[in-house]
């Protein structure tokens, strides 16, 4: 059976800027696939091309066997899309929102009713179906959008930042329902996210995108192993003489040393062996280790390794942008 999504050198240029640069991906059927990367890395542009909103400058992709360039209509019938911004109509009831979408997709009247009921039940909105969406919480709106995009039984579901702007509780609920939907429906899910815990717990495979390219691809375990190749030691050192830092950087057991004020992040092959040696080395050069912790690498370390940025800094920027664009809309 053909993969759900296959891209071939797909490229998008906006003038001089190459937003997506010859990406080749193959996403298997029923896979949950995550695209992670800093803001402006090209994730959303990639998704917009795959969902036929933007035509690629070069290359192409096949979704559920249909070419996005030559057969966009069949692609549209095979995909569901949940965009980052909320697009439900708050003046209408959940039922009306679902029903009008079913009409857009030409879902026959006989099956429409049953399908809407079933989907609303899955995300726990059946008893609120007759209420206008304006009375819904952010999480409920998101859940409604989730099932609205499934009304025509798509093969592939695209989710752009599905939990951005939700509080942790609502986010967890959305993720739970997403898992439930995936379990019940024969569907492939492609999502972009800023929440690494979310990507790690939900996705079968992840692609780290930066500057329009896939810089790493694999399961989260694979990524962590490939990116770091060992454990991470974090040490607070004060005072921290330059000689101590230099000695650490040139030592054989430290694979990578990063410094941020008094915090040292040292990547080592084996943490247990490295801890006493770090303390000893810093001590011999006139420094003093105030605290030291050993931990297994996280996706954040992977992210830092591949993109040179911490995703947390990036998330902060994104949230701020989200707020300001919301403000612009209200004006």
């Amino acid at each position, binding site marked *: 059976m053909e993969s759900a999504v296959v891209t071939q050198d797909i490229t998008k240029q906006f003038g001089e800027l190459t937003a997506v640069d010859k990406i080749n991906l193959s996403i298997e059927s029923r896979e949950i696939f995550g695209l992670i990367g800093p803001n402006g890395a090209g994730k959303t542009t990639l998704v917009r091309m795959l*969902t*036929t*909103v933007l035509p690629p400058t070069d290359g192409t992709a096949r979704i559920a066997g249909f070419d996005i360039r030559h057969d966009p*209509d069949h692609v*549209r*019938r095979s*995909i569901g*899309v949940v*965009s980052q*911004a*909320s*697009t439900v*109509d708050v*003046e*209408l009831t959940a039922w*009306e929102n679902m029903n*009008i*979408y079913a*009409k*857009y*997709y*030409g879902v026959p009247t006989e099956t429409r009713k049953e399908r809407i009921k079933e989907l609303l039940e899955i995300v726990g909105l059946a008893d609120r179906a007759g209420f*206008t969406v304006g009375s819904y919480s952010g999480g409920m709106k998101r859940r409604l959008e989730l099932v609205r995009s499934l009304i025509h039984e798509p093969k592939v579901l695209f989710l752009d930042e599905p939990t951005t702007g939700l509080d942790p509780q609502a986010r967890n609920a959305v993720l739970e329902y997403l898992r439930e939907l995936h379990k019940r429906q024969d569907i492939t899910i492609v999502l972009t996210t800023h929440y690494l815990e979310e990507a790690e717990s939900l996705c079968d495979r992840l692609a780290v995108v930066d500057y329009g390219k896939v810089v790493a691809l694999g399961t989260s375990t694979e990524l962590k192993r490939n990116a770091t190749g060992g454990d991470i030691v974090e040490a607070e050192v004060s005072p921290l003489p330059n000689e101590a830092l230099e000695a650490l950087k040139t030592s054989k057991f430290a694979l990578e040393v990063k410094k941020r004020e008094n915090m040292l992040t040292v990547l080592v092959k084996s943490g247990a062996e490295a801890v006493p040696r770090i303390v000893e080395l810093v001590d011999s050069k006139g420094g003093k280790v105030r605290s030291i912790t050993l931990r297994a690498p996280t996706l954040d370390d992977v992210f830092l390794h591949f993109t040179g940025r911490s995703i947390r800094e990036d998330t902060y920027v994104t949230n701020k942008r989200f707020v300001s664009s919301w403000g*612009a*809309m209200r*004006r």
Partner: protein
Amino acid sequence: MKGALWVCERDIRKFLRQPATMLGAVVGPFLTLILLGFAFGGAVTHAPVAVVRESYGPISTNFVDIITNQQNCVYGGVDCANAYNLIDVSDLGAAQSMLKAGAVKAVVYIPIGFDQSGANSSVVSVYLDNTDPISAAAISGLMTQAASEITAHVQITPPPDPLVTVNLDNIYREVLYIEFMAPGSLIQSIMFASIIGGGISLLFDKQRGIIEGYLVTPLKRIEIVVGVLLAGVTKAMFSATTMLILAIVFAGVRPMADIVGFVLIFFTLFLTSMGLISMMSAYAVRAPAPEVYQFTAFPINLILYFTSGAVYPIQGFPPWMRTIASINPEAYAIHALRDLMYKGAGPLAVIGDFAFLALFTGIMIILATLAFKRAL
């Protein structure tokens, strides 16, 4: 093309859930009609006029009787009331001071020797406060009329010179100023609906990503365009119909149209809605920023409204305004509506207006389609 219906259905459902948003399109034109219509349309009544009488002969007595009893109205038809209240003042100087102080609107001066000088050369002087041209015109009209009555009275047959008489004959029933204004208000409610229900709701949808959301569905672009315009026209027709009912109920507008006339009235409203909705939708999706649209839409409305002949006949415009009127679709729509509402005109009388409106609407639909294609 079914998709267009669903796109339209969504918009209409939203609109029905909150019709108050569209009533906003009716409130402005309705208030304008009521306030402007009643303020401008009324006859001048009880304007204070000073009478300074220095001659007490039969002719002057007769003249004063006539102006005292004059129960005419300046603007025919409305309930007749005294156009002015006469105040006796003994001294011309004092009367003129009152005029300058604004205590009276005019001074009627009957000088010494008026009754002796004979009818042909007796002169009554009327001093007018012409800073209020409307009252001044009303008073001077009535004084001239009174003088002509007295002349006829004193001139016993045969008259020395042939008298020219003007026979006024209204060929239609009396049309009040507020009725004259009403067609403009109908068109203005369509324009407001186009600005709010057409452009602004489209801007919101665009900003919220709903327009882009359409693109990932199997809806064709042309279906989206047609659906959005169709919904806009429905909303505009709702506004115009509401406005028409309000005008009939509260402004005393009485359309003199039969069934065919009403069909033609609604056809005029429909053509205008289609044209203005397309125009404002095209502008909204192509405007450089939502703010630009919001700040410019209402001035555009003002220009179209006041150059359309809605409140004053185009024949009274300076040339530059006439030029604008000649290409203003609202002017043609209002002209057609007046013919249909007050003359009971048939289709032949308004065919020229319809031709212009159809041309305008056609061009705007093409523009809207192109604008959407580029914006989508």
